[in-house]
């Protein structure tokens, strides 16, 4: 189940959940449901009793890792080395526990020093990651009037102005942190859970991405999303003349590509009350239109609470491996 609990289901029950999952998301996002062949393929994957499943030899994809390491088995650089040398991760990420560009700005020299040490010791690409986290700029955490308090008071114009102001500050902070990380040798910058605070959050990520791409043509830039849908907290913000509020993965990807990112990470959240079969059909249906136009690598978020993986502290291996196999074989993703 989506909450990680074990249930026994018949093949017919799994089939019914797959069909319902794709129909629900197709209706919600106004996209086509999965084809019968795709549903049959998913049924084979999800009706298996195997604890672990995998793609065919030769079909392996790149595994990037936001939030690499646990911080409980040594220092952060040792975490990166462990992921590189024990787990065989393809791309690791240095990060700090206050996973926000605004927070990192105050400590950027020390973060840069850790990046420099990591670059000396790791062979695998090391990117630096954090959340754009637009909400941090509103009161009481930041200097700007809180748009979540202004909106219920019907102060719509003031709420919109506050988000625009916060957006500018966020872009400056991402740019500032990225400059220091590039100076320290970073291979890439990750903007993780972009859009978590809505369209202003997404706009800041896209704007910062375009600025960084112009300065650093070689730099890996990953934009991972917070959700399958961009919330219209502002409602009228645009990037390249297109309204960001209400965008589903296909349009999110078009914007991310236009901004110059290297990697797009779609995220589809889990319904904890439904089976993993229902959730994977829903997630693949949302993301499939994006894969049909992708010109850059797509690394689907397949982890705790997103991408068909249950929301629980220790996701079962059968759930994680089934989801991974499904995304690779049906959507032909480039990584996760």
């Amino acid at each position: 189940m989506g909450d990680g609990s074990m249930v026994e289901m018949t093949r017919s029950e799994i089939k019914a959940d797959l069909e319902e999952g794709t129909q629900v998301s197709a209706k919600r996002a106004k996209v086509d449901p999965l084809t019968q062949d795709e549903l049959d393929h998913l049924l084979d994957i999800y009706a298996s009793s195997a604890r672990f499943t995998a793609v065919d030899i030769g079909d392996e994809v790149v595994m990037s890792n936001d939030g690499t390491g646990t911080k409980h088995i040594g220092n952060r650089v040792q975490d990166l080395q462990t992921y590189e040398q024990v787990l065989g991760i393809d791309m690791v990420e240095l990060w700090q526990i206050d996973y926000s560009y605004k927070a990192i700005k105050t400590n950027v020299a020390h973060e840069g020093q850790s990046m420099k040490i990591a670059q000396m010791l790791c062979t695998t690409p090391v990117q630096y990651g954090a959340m754009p986290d637009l909400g941090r700029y509103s009161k009481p955490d930041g200097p700007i009037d809180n748009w979540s308090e202004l909106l219920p008071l019907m102060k719509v114009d003031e709420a919109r102005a506050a988000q625009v102001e916060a957006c500018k500050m966020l872009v400056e902070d991402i740019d500032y942190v990225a400059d220091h990380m590039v100076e320290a040798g970073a291979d890439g910058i990750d903007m993780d859970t972009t859009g978590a605070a809505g369209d202003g959050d997404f706009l800041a990520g896209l704007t910062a991405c375009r600025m960084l791409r112009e300065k650093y043509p070689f730099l890996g830039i990953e934009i991972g999303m917070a959700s399958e849908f961009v919330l219209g907290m502002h409602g009228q913000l645009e990037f390249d003349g297109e309204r960001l509020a209400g965008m589903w993965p296909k349009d999110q990807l078009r914007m991310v590509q236009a901004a110059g990112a290297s990697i797009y990470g779609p995220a589809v959240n889990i319904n904890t009350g439904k089976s993993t079969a229902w959730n994977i059909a829903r997630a693949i249906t949302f993301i499939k239109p994006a894969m049909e136009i992708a010109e850059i690598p797509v690394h689907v978020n397949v982890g705790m609470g997103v991408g068909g993986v249950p929301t629980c502290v220790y996701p079962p291996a059968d759930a994680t491996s089934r989801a991974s196999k499904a995304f690779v074989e049906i959507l032909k993703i480039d990584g996760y």
Partner: protein
Amino acid sequence: MGGMRTAGDLVARMQMTRRMRLKEAKAYVADKLGCTPRDLSDPSAMEEIRIAKGLGTLPFTSSVRPGEAGMIEAKFNIAKTLDIPINCVERFKERVGLGGSATA
């Protein structure tokens, strides 16, 4: 893909640096290494290739190679083999007076 056990880190670099999708990135790396895309996820095949080209291998109990390129050293060879700029390599060269430009 297996990271440094295979060629996962090399394919990842092409995705990051050149925005290549997976199939294109695998074909590019295989061409540069003189192997097939299928070899890229084969730990046995890649161990030989990585040693021959100085691309770094994983040190563990029964196989340590302190006399061969590893870590930052290996990244000099990866940049040359894949014909891509690696930021920390360019910074290293700048700071020890060997030239280099991270805007390459």
